[in-house]
């Protein structure tokens, strides 16, 4: 799906959302006239449709709004996932919600065929390095990044990362000029398939600490 198609779908969805909020009667959540089996299928369909239409993860609260009062969103999603085995896309949990995603093995095919436009997240090596440094050392300012890389990190590079919504401004660093620091965003977590920052791979060079030493035994 191209970004434009997605945007149109989202716009339609949000327009529909406004309608629904202005008159809740119009939207039948409970579907009481349907037999149990069909009702469940309809709910599964609704969840799948909402997730398909959205370009970003959809939270549990939003999904719960399109299904019956007592219906378990998790169970519905499990059933949808069950039907997706063997498909080239999957329904995954990311950054506090769920989203549709193509499977990793098809990445090359998608790159070869589609014009990804602004969706493309191709990184240069330096961009990736800076992003990693920020992820592990956040909040960190440009002076801190300079200490890590041994040279100035250009404002343009940071602006590009910020434009891709992977980093944001964090607390002020307590130095002269009060430069703002950089922190990673929700989009960063989604992009790299992390639930929280704890999913970042452990650094081998972590300094010796009682807790640190005890950790490998836990894994």
């Amino acid at each position, binding site marked *: 799906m191209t970004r434009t198609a997605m945007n149109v779908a989202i716009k339609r969805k949000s327009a529909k959302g406004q309608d629904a909020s202005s008159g809740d009667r119009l939207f039948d959540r409970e579907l009481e006239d349907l037999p149990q089996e069909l009702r469940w299928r309809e709910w599964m369909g609704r969840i799948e449709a909402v997730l398909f239409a959205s370009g970003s993860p959809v*939270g*549990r*609260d939003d999904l719960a709004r399109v299904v019956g009062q007592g219906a378990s969103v998790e169970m519905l999603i499990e059933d949808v996932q069950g039907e997706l085995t063997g498909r080239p896309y999957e329904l995954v949990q990311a950054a*506090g919600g769920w989203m549709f995603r193509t499977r990793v093995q098809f990445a090359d095919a998608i790159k070869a065929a589609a014009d990804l436009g602004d969706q493309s997240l191709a990184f240069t090596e330096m961009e990736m390095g800076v992003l990693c440094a920020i992820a592990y050392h*956040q*909040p960190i300012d440009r002076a801190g990044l300079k200490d890590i890389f041994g040279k100035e990190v250009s404002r343009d590079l940071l602006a590009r990362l910020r434009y891709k919504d992977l980093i*944001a*401004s*964090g*607390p*002020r*660093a*307590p130095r*002269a000029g*009060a430069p*703002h*620091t950089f*922190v990673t*965003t929700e989009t960063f977590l989604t992009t790299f398939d992390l639930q*929280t*920052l*704890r999913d970042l791979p452990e650094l081998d060079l972590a300094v010796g*600490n009682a*807790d*640190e030493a*005890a*950790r490998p035994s*836990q894994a």
Partner: protein
Amino acid sequence: MTYQPTAIDDDQINLPKLPCWVTTGRAETPETVAFQSGAALAVLDQLVSDRAHGVPVKLLANRLALSAATATSKLEGRLAREADIRDAYHLTPQGDARGPDGDLLAYWRKAAGLRLSGRDWHRGLEGIVGQSFEDDVAGWIEAGAECARTHVPLAGCVAVLRTVLDADDRAERVACLLSDIVLARVLNWKTVLPVTTRRLTKPALRDVVAEGQGAELPLQVRILENIEETIRLARDLAQRATMLQAVAPKLRAKGSDAAVALFLSEDAVAPSTMLSPMIKGTTIPMTDRAARRFCDRLVELGVAQELTGRPTFRLYGIVR
């Protein structure tokens, strides 16, 4: 000009304190832990509930929130230092992202501000623990409180810690918060004091999930130590608060009453953002310079300290 540091009042000696038979003996069996924790909780409850003792409860809760954030950071493997966490929280401009450290302190401060009275106090809690737990927390707390009533309070705390970590072994911050809530419910407190976390360690939590009953006692002992430490902190804060109130009449700055009240509820005060242009929580204006001078004056009088050791971006508080 130097000033005579304000002397501590004699009547502070009457503050409840831990009897030596609690502090000297080491608790090793379930019975001794139960006995000593009972004594410790009674003292802490008196200190916090009886206003006559003059413990600034809000300040205590906020200070404990900072300790809890530092301990949770350790449990989560981020290992942020207390000063960094405090900076991340206090130096973030309005509307910007706080980052993981600042968010952690914000989480604990929100938890410390939770009101447990009223019928819909669960609402506030759901906003704090996040979506994945909001359905379960009420049941977990009830079960923990029930266990605390039939056994001992600390057993209830450990039971809820175990339940949460069983459900999600990375939810340390939620587990610790629910343990604090169970304790507060059992002691009938109106607010939550984050006392559980400080001395918990990762191996101790791991053991209690893996082994169950057998590993509960060491965890109870750790929480007991936390409670003893909280009592010391509460006594210390009560004395310092009295000292601050004693010098309050000497402060002539406009709005000094409101500023003193702020110092009695916040563990760290940033003069440039929390005192000026307006004293936080009020509409009383204070200029940048007046705010700085006010804080310097408190330090001069020996009732407040500068917390960071920096020449700029300073933070002041009545206890370190």
